[in-house]
């Protein structure tokens, strides 16, 4: 294991030539950047097809209401309108309801009732986007307003309004109960513990809000029955299969193209009604139809994140040895259970809430409920709800530290799983692959100057100033499958990759996953480069087109490097082994007598006798007599089924100053030490961490999708849903340790979501630490000035 503090590479030279760059892992500039800095990216809304029409969706103005009538006469009479589609029209096509990713159904267009503000009611197709919007105002919908079910805490009360009364026999809002761990064993440990602390911890509803909203361009060719669907999707192959199932179009007649994606963060995993409506619009009009949602539609109707009301308990000894944790969770799933997660896990991977600590017992129980709010729940770089789990345990450890009057860093250090305990089976069924937590924590403390910060804090407190230091130590679980345990609507969570080396030694690698900004075109070229010695700039990365890439489940849950990275490395190794056989034939040597150095096979003991990859690839496609069983190419394809998940981890320390007069929180410093195993491109890793840290500051301090008692969404625009700008975040201080995954082909663990998962508790713990003079033991996110002020006055309330 090595421990390093990262420093920005100011000396990076954009004019660097191939010879300056590493062939393989290391810091190189991104291959995708030249088009983006020229404004030549190709995002969904940039796509224009001949004769293309534009769609717009009429949405419900209320949270809960019965549809009495819909009159589309005037809209249809608009000279630029080509079609108006309602739920009744879809019923005739058996398309009014579509299956969700969680074995529920969701209304594509409402037929009987509207169940959340912003729900899809009608779809207009017109000649341009302005006319489509004009026509929405010409549709007359009469509603009977119904009492809304908004407060999840009351969802299971007798007599509560029933959100899903269209389901036969349903008289309540209960979606599921799910538990993990051993309840009896956990209760027994709690019963004999010296100390038990209990705290309700709310992770409020937030939204991924990528800068590019969701959209689709559907192009249905009625002659050959082929649908080409351009979509903002993180999972093009899964979408193709689901569209085949939903729309009844044979799968070989569907091509899903995911162009450049302007940020995803889980927002672009689900299949939204708008995508289906674009397809319907194209079938109905016989022309390509583009639908792009506006920002309010994005925030009010597409996949939200979190919305977990958690009651946590920790049992410990008086000396600070944590013995057990247990929690009950009320999960608000909105009007339809449309969370995108592996089938067996209705609460995602929340049961990693045991964190980074060696425990004797653990138990969690999660209850999901319906409310009159938008569906979703698994998004915003959450690693299938590891965000909620890490927030709970890291907040609870601080509550325990407060109870025991112990330093929160010291309490964590005393309870870490020790390096010799890996692979570590936790008490809820996970096997952590590798870890060495203490050096990571110590590096973060050293970079922060932890002891000096505590001294400074004491001095400031004596002067009445509010300074807080918050710590979070997280363990992620990412890279789902294995496929025998994990599937999305029956599709096993594996990913394919295909590597082809062309005759001249240049290569193409085709992926099933899809970048939303993570830099796949660079990272995956570097993996091939590392394995085959072909420079990254000589390797084309193809993704985001189901007609041209192998099948796989896509990019979310930090799974691209853990799963597709494994597939690419193994496919490249198959190519390398094939190259060895061909090189042996060329050298008239036995394959077992050859040795590999990056980019070249040579005869052991005689390095001058060798063949480079371009020589071998030309021979593979040329006239050299190939060994028996070797066909004339240098290609390989692998579908990688990971044997286990990977468990990245990290130590985060946040320093805040709180204005005692206003409650405003200033994030002064943020120190992040991450361990994602083998590091492919340090520059990209650092960028992934930075972005997640800003997410964490945003959620901890300002981001919130909340509702009034009538169910009106109060976070439905960027004037209300606040996202950090450059003024609210500090210059990040990053470092890293390297503990490779023992089971991954290149030892990489994934980094995409670590910082989003790990940073919110560090910020909130810092705010609460700052408020210690006011006797505040807990307050819920977001720590806005008004809410911090209320906490200082002894009136801390949950946001929901």
């Amino acid at each position: 294991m090595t421990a390093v503090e990262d420093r920005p590479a100011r000396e990076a030279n954009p004019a660097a030539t191939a010879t300056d760059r590493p062939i393989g892992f290391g810091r190189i500039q991104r291959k995708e950047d030249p088009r983006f800095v020229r404004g030549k990216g190709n995002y969904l809304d940039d796509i224009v097809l001949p004769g293309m029409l534009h769609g717009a969706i009429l949405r419900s103005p209320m949270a809960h209401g019965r549809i009495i009538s819909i009159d589309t006469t005037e809209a249809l009479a608009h000279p630029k309108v080509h079609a108006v589609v309602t739920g009744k029209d879809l019923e005739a096509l058996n398309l009014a309801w579509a299956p969700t990713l969680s074995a529920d159904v969701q209304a594509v267009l409402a037929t009987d009732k509207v169940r959340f503000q912003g729900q899809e009611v009608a779809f207009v197709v017109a000649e341009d986007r302005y006319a489509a919007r004009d026509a929405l105002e010409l549709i007359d919908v009469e509603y009977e307003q119904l009492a809304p079910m908004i407060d999840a805490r009351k969802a299971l009360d007798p007599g509560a309004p029933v959100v899903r009364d269209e389901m036969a026999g349903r008289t309540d809002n209960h979606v599921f109960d799910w538990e993990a761990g051993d309840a009896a064993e956990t209760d027994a440990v709690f019963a004999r513990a010296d100390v038990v602390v209990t705290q309700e911890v709310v992770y409020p509803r937030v939204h991924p809000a990528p800068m590019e909203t969701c959209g689709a361009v559907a192009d249905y060719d009625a002659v050959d029955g082929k649908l080409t669907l351009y979509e903002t999707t993180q999972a093009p192959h899964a979408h193709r299969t689901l569209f085949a199932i939903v729309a009844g179009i044979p799968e070989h007649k569907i091509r899903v193209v995911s162009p450049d994606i302007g940020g995803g963060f889980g927002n672009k995993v689900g299949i939204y009604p708008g995508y289906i409506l674009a397809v319907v619009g194209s079938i109905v009009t016989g022309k390509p139809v583009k639908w792009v949602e506006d920002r309010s539609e994005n925030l009010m109707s597409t996949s939200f994140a979190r919305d977990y009301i958690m009651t946590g308990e920790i049992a410990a000894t008086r000396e600070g040895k944590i013995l057990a944790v247990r929690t009950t969770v009320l999960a608000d799933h909105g009007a339809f259970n449309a969370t995108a997660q592996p089938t067996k896990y209705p609460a995602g991977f929340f049961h990693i809430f045991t964190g980074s600590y060696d425990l004797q017992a653990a138990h969690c129980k999660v209850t999901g409920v319906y409310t009159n709010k938008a569906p979703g729940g698994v998004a915003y770089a959450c690693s299938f709800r590891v965000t909620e789990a890490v927030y709970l345990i890291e907040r609870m450890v601080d509550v325990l530290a407060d109870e025991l009057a112990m330093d929160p860093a010291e309490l964590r250090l005393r309870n870490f799983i020790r390096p010799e305990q890996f692979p570590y089976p936790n008490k809820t069924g996970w096997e952590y692959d590798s870890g060495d937590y203490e050096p990571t924590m110590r590096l973060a403390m050293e970079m922060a100057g932890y002891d000096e910060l505590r001294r400074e804090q004491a001095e400031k407190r004596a002067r009445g100033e509010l300074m807080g230091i918050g710590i979070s130590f997280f363990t992620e679980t990412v890279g789902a499958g294995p496929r025998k345990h994990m599937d999305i609507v029956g599709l096993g969570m594996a990913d394919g990759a295909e590597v082809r080396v062309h005759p001249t030694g240049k290569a193409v690698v085709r992926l099933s996953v899809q970048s939303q900004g993570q830099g796949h075109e660079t990272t995956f070229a570097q993996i091939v480069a590392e394995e085959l010695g072909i420079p990254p700039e000589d390797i084309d990365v193809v993704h985001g087109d189901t007609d041209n890439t192998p099948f796989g489940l896509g990019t979310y849950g930090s799974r691209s490097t853990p799963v597709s990275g494994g597939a690419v490395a193994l496919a490249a190794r198959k190519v390398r082994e094939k190259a060895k056989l061909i090189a042996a034939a060329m050298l008239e040597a036995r394959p077992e007598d050859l040795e590999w150095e990056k980019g070249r096979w040579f005869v052991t003991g005689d390095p001058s006798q060798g063949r480079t990859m371009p020589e071998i690839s030309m021979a593979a496609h040329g006239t050299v007599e190939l060994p028996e069983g070797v066909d004339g190419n240098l290609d390989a394809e692998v579908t990688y089924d990971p044997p286990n998940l990977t468990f990245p981890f990290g130590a985060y320390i946040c320093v805040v100053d709180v204005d005692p007069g206003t409650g405003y929180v200033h994030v002064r410093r943020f120190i992040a030490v991450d361990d994602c195993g083998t590091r492919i491109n340090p520059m990209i890793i650092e960028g992934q961490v930075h972005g997640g840290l800003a997410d964490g500051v945003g959620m901890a301090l300002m981001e919130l999708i909340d509702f009034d008692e009538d169910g009106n969404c109060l976070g439905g625009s960027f004037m209300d849903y606040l996202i950090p700008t450059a003024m609210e975040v500090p210059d990040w201080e990053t470092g890293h340790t390297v503990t490779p995954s023992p089971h991954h082909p290149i030892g990489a663990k994934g980094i995409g979501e670590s910082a989003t998962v790990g940073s919110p508790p560090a910020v909130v713990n810092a705010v609460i630490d700052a408020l210690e003079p006011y006797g505040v033991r807990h307050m819920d996110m977001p720590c806005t000035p008004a809410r911090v002020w209320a906490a200082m006055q002894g009136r801390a309330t949950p946001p929901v």
Partner: protein
Amino acid sequence: MQITATVNGTEVTRDVEPRVLLVHHLREELGLTGTHWGCDTSNCGTCVVLLDGQPVKSCTVLAAMVDGHEVTTVEGLADGATLDPVQQGFMAEHGLQCGFCTPGMMLTARALLDRTPHPDEQQIREAISGQICRCTGYATIVRSIQWAADHPAVRTEPTGAQA
């Protein structure tokens, strides 16, 4: 109505609906899709272009308002094959990930450096504070703009921009 504007150094005349926003005019009528759209409320800044050298949010400007004025979009930032130092800086310092906010960020940076060739970190942060990036956490954007300030020699005057 008919408008004539200088867009990236070229005079263009078009008939536009009076209500059409500049962002839609640029993207859909002139085919300059490097300018993006991200919100309805003038908060996100993905649509920033330079109007007579000053950054403006093109979702809050009517196309009709640029009649007789100069507009620079990301497509006008490079001088042929020579990238503006800002563009080079964003590549050198990993100032972009998904690339969606990038054109607006770069144009704001260009206007800042034209006004203040050697900005400090706080000045850079203030300059881009009307724009949102969801990917980078801003530190690398700040470094990218610092890189451009440190490498003015590779600057060539972008066509259509006013100093």
